[in-house]
């Protein structure tokens, strides 16, 4: 179904965005084009706005921005210490997909905590065994001396 658009709105779009369809709001583009085809008045307005567009396009500028200067500034901002970190992070990033580049740090922290927890649990349980053994031997010694 063709979208309905008023003559006033089409004129407003031409005076706002000019004559180039790629500058018109995407959701109204088709309806604007259809309306222009049907109206002499809108076609005349389109021509007038084309002249403004041509004038605007005539103002071209060459770029002189220095990429090398920018890169040397970035280079000087990166301290030697952070370069080492960057190399490490770059190595990690080269191993994993780009989507996971923000995820590996929390994963490393979680894994460290997990391994640390297992180690601590193992240490505590062996310590408990030792205590239990000590108490057992102490009790047996007590029984032996008592008897």
């Amino acid at each position, binding site marked *: 179904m063709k979208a309905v658009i008023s003559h006033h709105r089409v004129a407003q779009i031409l005076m*706002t965005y000019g004559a180039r369809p790629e500058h018109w709001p995407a959701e109204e583009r088709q309806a604007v084009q259809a309306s222009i085809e049907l109206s002499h008045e809108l076609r005349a307005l389109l021509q007038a706005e084309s002249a403004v567009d041509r004038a*605007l396009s*005539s*103002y*071209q500028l060459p770029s002189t921005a220095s990429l090398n200067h920018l890169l040397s500034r970035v280079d000087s901002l990166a301290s030697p210490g952070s370069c080492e970190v*960057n190399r490490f992070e770059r190595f990690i990033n080269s191993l994993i997909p*780009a989507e996971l580049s923000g995820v590996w740090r929390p994963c490393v922290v979680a894994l460290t905590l997990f391994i640390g927890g297992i180690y601590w649990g193992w240490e505590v349980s062996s310590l408990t065994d030792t205590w239990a053994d000590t108490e057992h031997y102490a009790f047996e010694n007590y029984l032996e001396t008592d008897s």
Partner: protein
Amino acid sequence: MDEASEVRRIASGDQLAFKRLAQVYLPAIEFYALRLTSNRALAEDVAQETLLTLWLKAADYDPKKARLTTWLHQIAYYRVIDALRVAQRYSSADAEVPDTTAEDATDAERASAAGIKNALLSLPERQRNALVLTYYQEFTNREVAMLMGISRRAVESLLVRARQAVRQALETANGSHL
């Protein structure tokens, strides 16, 4: 090029990723600043500082909120405003940028380009920004609205007035009716 991934790499210190994006955005931001200020030195400063912000604050960029180009233009816009307010260069700026139409341009085309430059400079700051973003930087009205922090209706209002002013300035310069 997946820009969000590139920015994540920049956030982790990848200078090659930065170089790839800077090659695209350094000239784009310079053109934008130059059309807003018509001051070559200031435009180069703004472009350099905007890209340095990308290097230093890449982790702050959220691709869900805006395209990278929108984010960078927003940073550049505020830098332009700050720089112009400090330097108050509106009046002296136009002498610093030579008219730069193509070498084979006719006199009429050169005159038109000079007229446009003066017409753009004579626009109020917000009208000029809306026109430059929409016409030269090719942002949608939705993006311009977000970038300027105003409604789409307000963007359209700025654009209508900007184009009317440009048309009148050209008519005055040419002594004719466009």
